[in-house]
């Protein structure tokens, strides 16, 4: 990140960020991971913890990427990457796949975002009002339909602007839906009072984190919210 990095702390790598989210996903959840950074989360859920990954294009029970010589050309995920199917996995058509999402059957969706606001608004599909052909894909369905929405993103943009904002300036994907945000600096819950910091990277102070964040931060109680 471009913000001045103090000697006392360093931001998580992308893999560390993904691993941090993976820690909080319990066995038995049905989970949809957004394209990009969230996709890495699956690599950090041990195979003996049965978490069932869903992909919008009709795959439930998705497994890891295949070896190069074991690719099934008929099996891709929503990011158009080749994947595998775990024993117990199934296929369905797009309307059933989105019924899983829109009908509130998916326990968790983790999306990337451009901005998350302190009231839980998410903007992750268009970078300006003037972008007349932005690609929404399944983001609005997931944001409005999943039982819980977490966001995994860098704390700031490449130029150092906070992605945790008072109010989104980019077009919304859905209002008031984000429950938790994992960044490369902190884990924050979205509460009625705004962002509550429940964890920070080692060495960073609350004030240092606040200085890098547009939205006002609150200290969460020591007890971790579920």
């Amino acid at each position, binding site marked *: 990140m471009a913000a001045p990095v103090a000697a006392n702390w360093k931001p998580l790598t992308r893999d560390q960020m993904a691993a941090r989210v993976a820690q909080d996903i319990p066995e038995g959840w049905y989970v949809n991971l957004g394209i990009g950074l969230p996709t890495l989360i699956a690599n950090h859920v041990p195979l003996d913890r049965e978490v069932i990954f869903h992909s919008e294009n009709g795959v439930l029970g998705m497994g890891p990427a295949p070896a190069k010589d074991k690719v099934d050309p008929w099996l891709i995920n929503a990011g*158009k990457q080749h994947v595998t199917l775990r024993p117990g996995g199934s296929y369905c058509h*797009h309307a059933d796949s989105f019924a899983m999402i829109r009908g509130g059957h998916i326990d968790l969706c983790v999306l990337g975002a451009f901005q998350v606001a302190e009231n839980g608004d998410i903007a992750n599909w268009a970078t300006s009002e003037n972008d007349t052909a932005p690609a929404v894909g399944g983001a609005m369905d997931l944001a409005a339909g999943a039982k819980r929405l977490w966001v995994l993103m860098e704390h700031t943009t490449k130029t150092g602007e906070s992605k945790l904002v008072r109010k989104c300036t980019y*077009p919304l994907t859905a209002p008031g839906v984000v429950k938790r945000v994992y960044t490369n600096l902190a884990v924050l819950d979205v509460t009625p009072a705004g962002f509550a910091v429940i964890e920070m990277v080692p060495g960073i102070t609350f004030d240092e984190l606040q200085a890098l964040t547009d939205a006002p931060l609150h200290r969460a109680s020591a007890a971790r919210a579920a």
Partner: protein
Amino acid sequence: MINKFVRTMAEAMEGIQDGSTVLIGGFGSVGQPNALIDGLIEQGAKDLTVVANNPGVGRVGLARLLDLGRVRKIICSFPRSSDPIVFETLYREGRIELEIVPQGTMAERMRAAGAGIPAFYTPTGVGTKLAEGKEIREFNGRPYVMETAIQGDVALIEAWEADRWGNLTYRASGRNFNPIMAMAGKLTIVQTQHVVELGQLDPEKIVTPGIFVDRVLHVPYGDPMIS
């Protein structure tokens, strides 16, 4: 004897009118009715509205149909691809109309058409610019946006297996939009990788019952490209 198989592409495409709404199955390169798209290019219908998840890749298939100026409007969720050059050029030049629809809403709008439902309410898109100008109604304290059904004059489908009644199976993620588009098309045209005898498909495994299918062409197209 019912026989939905046709022998030639010309028979498969017969009667598609200018101004038609054409639903095109496929997600990524998997389950795309590539041969039928080429058949439609050859057939010549123009002023089309196309419903497909993406607006095509490179200059082949759907992108070629666009490039030839045959498509007035595209309805899709993701106006991007690995190479969206044709769509982006046409769009920038104002030569194609675009309707962006959340992917699940797009699927449901076609499923609704196939099930005789003219419109439905969904929370997807509420509070965003994709709901602007649409009816919002509250149920149990939550706002929902009304979305209308999308009926196709024509649906182009790729199946894995088909019999002469038009019963279909699909392969893995090749299923995607195909079964719902088959329901939503007034004229549903299928290209199938394999032909099987009537009675050979396990009734428990048929995904699209033949009632939703009008014409089937045997096209052993082979595996989708691995990019």
